[in-house]
């Protein structure tokens, strides 16, 4: 008599179909192992937005009664396995205003497992993941985060690789044979995918994480209003007007203090203030009003409100003046302009180090043209990436088939 619960932490919309496939795969693999399962999304994440963290859950139990007992919850409070399909979520999860920053490993039971897709070494991921007072295991699938959109799916086998890895992590619930059988029978399954699941099972790396190991920072939280403090008619005070940056020059808008975009961001703009021509285009085109106007007329992307869309890089007329760089290579949200003002040479060294990192500047955030995902997969393999299978998938990439 036993049950296990897994959560998938993923990027809203970008990975919605991926997460749905994983939890569905868990349930169907459980059936093939003679057990019962259920999959559901977290109600509070809907409506999903591109990039905003979201969760799906899967529960597997030996008997129907036990499954029902575990289903009688709005949202699981503890999970045996947390599956994270984008390593930039290691910095934390903030789904709505009022949540504050929730550590990625918050729900993992003592001795549970965090299964994460990443190309980073353990040490780098642990710099981001908040410390926990109980030990857990970190298991790694060597893969880049797989992003696509609502309608066209990136068939890079991530879903079956996760399922194969789970068979190794919780063999008492999902056997590898059951996973392979389920994968071969699913509408999006194939023999190639079965091979990928087996490979992931064989190659899974893992490491024990001690209690107290990890990012020592206290995740930020808010003082929530009490019900008696709320005003009549559910009215709330407006945000005050912004102020000049300093000495009456520049402009810094006031911002919503209860919802920041730290954890929505998958990439961030790195700005070359020396080549900036002060054309205002990034500032006017930013949907999140994240650019503060500096006294010298340049613009500093405020990391509390940048959600990392990349529109600024797209509209910037100067080459390499704004470069989007993967969030995983940054350790804090400090102002780039302040660093540049303090020491221009040190800033230049830092900036060049970031923007010349070819791994971190790769961008695959959804559809750009037909056949793109197949091209990306091929070039990744050609560049010596982790072989998924012998073949390049892509036949199914035209349509969503969840």
């Amino acid at each position, binding site marked *: 008599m036993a049950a296990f619960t897994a959560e998938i932490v993923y990027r809203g*919309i970008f990975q919605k179909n991926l997460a749905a496939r994983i939890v569905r795969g868990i349930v169907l693999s459980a059936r093939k192992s003679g057990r019962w399962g259920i999959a559901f999304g977290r109600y509070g994440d809907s*409506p*999903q*937005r*591109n*990039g*905003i963290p979201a969760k799906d859950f899967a529960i597997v139990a030996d008997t129907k009664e036990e499954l029902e007992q575990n289903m009688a919850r709005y949202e699981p409070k503890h999970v045996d396995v947390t599956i994270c399909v984008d390593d930039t979520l290691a910095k934390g999860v903030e789904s*709505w*205003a*009022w949540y504050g920053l929730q550590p990625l490993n918050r729900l993992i039971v003592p001795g549970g497992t965090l299964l994460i897709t990443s190309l980073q070494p353990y040490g780098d991921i642990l710099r981001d993941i908040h410390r926990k007072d109980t030990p857990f295991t970190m298991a790694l699938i060597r893969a880049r985060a797989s992003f*696509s*959109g*609502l*309608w*066209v799916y990136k068939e890079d086998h991530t879903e079956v690789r996760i399922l194969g890895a789970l068979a190794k992590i919780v063999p008492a619930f999902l056997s590898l044979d059951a996973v392979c059988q389920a994968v071969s029978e699913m509408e999006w399954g194939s023999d190639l995918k079965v091979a990928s699941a087996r490979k992931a099972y064989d190659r899974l790396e893992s490491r024990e994480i001690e209690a107290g190991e990890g990012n020592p920072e206290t995740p930020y939280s808010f003082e929530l*209003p009490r019900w008696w403090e709320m005003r009549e008619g559910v009215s*709330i005070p*407006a*945000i*005050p*007007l*912004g102020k000049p940056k300093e000495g009456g020059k520049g*402009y810094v*808008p*006031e*911002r*919503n*203090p*209860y*919802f*920041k*975009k730290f954890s*929505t961001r998958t990439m961030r703009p790195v700005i070359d203030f020396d080549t900036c021509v002060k*054309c*205002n*285009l990034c500032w*006017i*085109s930013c*949907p999140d*009003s994240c650019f503060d*106007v500096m006294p010298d007329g340049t613009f500093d992307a*405020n990391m*509390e*409100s940048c*959600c*990392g*869309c*990349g*529109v600024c*890089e*797209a509209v910037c007329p100067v080459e390499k003046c704004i470069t989007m760089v993967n969030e995983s290579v940054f350790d804090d949200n400090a102002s780039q302009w302040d660093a540049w003002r303090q020491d221009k040479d040190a800033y230049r060294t830092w900036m060049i180090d970031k923007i010349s990192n070819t791994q971190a500047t790769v*961008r695959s*955030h*959804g*559809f*750009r*043209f*037909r056949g793109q995902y197949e091209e990306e997969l091929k070039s990744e393999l050609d560049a010596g990436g982790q072989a998924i299978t012998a073949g390049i998938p892509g036949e199914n990439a*035209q*349509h969503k088939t969840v």
Partner: protein
Amino acid sequence: MAETTFPNATQVLEPFRGIKRVTMEEYFTSGHRTCQGCESALVMKLMVKAAGPRTIVLGSTGCMYVANTTYYTTPWVVPWMHTQLGSSGSAALGTAAGLKSLMRKGKMKAEPINVIAFCGDGGGADMGIGAISATLTHKEYNSLILLYDNESYANTDIQLSGMTPYGAHTTFSPPGKAKRIIHTRWKKNMAGMMAAGHPECRYVATVCASFAVDMMNKVRRALTIGGPTFIHSLDPCPKGWDYDPMLSHELGELAIETGVFPLYEVEDGQVKYYGKTKSIVEGRPRKPVREYLLKQGRFAHFTEEDLAYFQAKVDEMWQWEIPAVVPFRRLDRAKAALEVK
């Protein structure tokens, strides 16, 4: 034409002469739960940046309501109120009338206050069209209704609306093996319809936030001309159109350059085209629509045949008597009358 003098004074809002002269103040700021690269959030920001601090904004249900006011928090600096899905028109009219009445009775200081109601394409072009139409006939009240059109019910995960383009993949129109094109209706022509159908509405315009200064100046014109006005904004939507959020700005530009969406204003019955749209009307070439369509996952199932059909329908739009504004043709007398003007 004594009736055309409006009793309500409006604010004085001069057009911005270039991007460098745009005001720095933000009245819609950060901290909203919109998608990465959300063009509609940009529309909100530019709309109130143009309108200024003495503005009341009313929003009907949609992304710009749900995403912008998550739990008891707000990114709005100006007063904002939610109104029901189909009622942006009624909310605009009621607020404008209420303010006027309070000022007449001396219960509040008499001053021109901008009233803007926004609606999505579902709330405006589908559900709210009757109320918007009614508001546009009440010429004694100053208000602006701004339709932000992301071409689907994007908030509830992309159901098709009357503004969804032909053939697009939505939750309600998934392409299948037996039938590839499920959504076979052509999109409504909202701005043209509002301009043609409301002779006393003095200002109707189309905008796209990729052309930010033009957009803000049209909002300023709509708020200063007097009476009810209407603006239709085309907003690329990374979630529903399925593209890399980085391309939001570029897709807005492509929509104009391919002639899928025109930029124009109708002021007191006079049509004025803007930018690329103007050069298209003057006969310069349009980019092929495939450059716009094939950058979006929602059209990934299109074959050459579908692309050709879409292109032909767009070509047709530019053959209209008043190109891309109202779908009338071969009215010789109307044409002669226009030439006299």
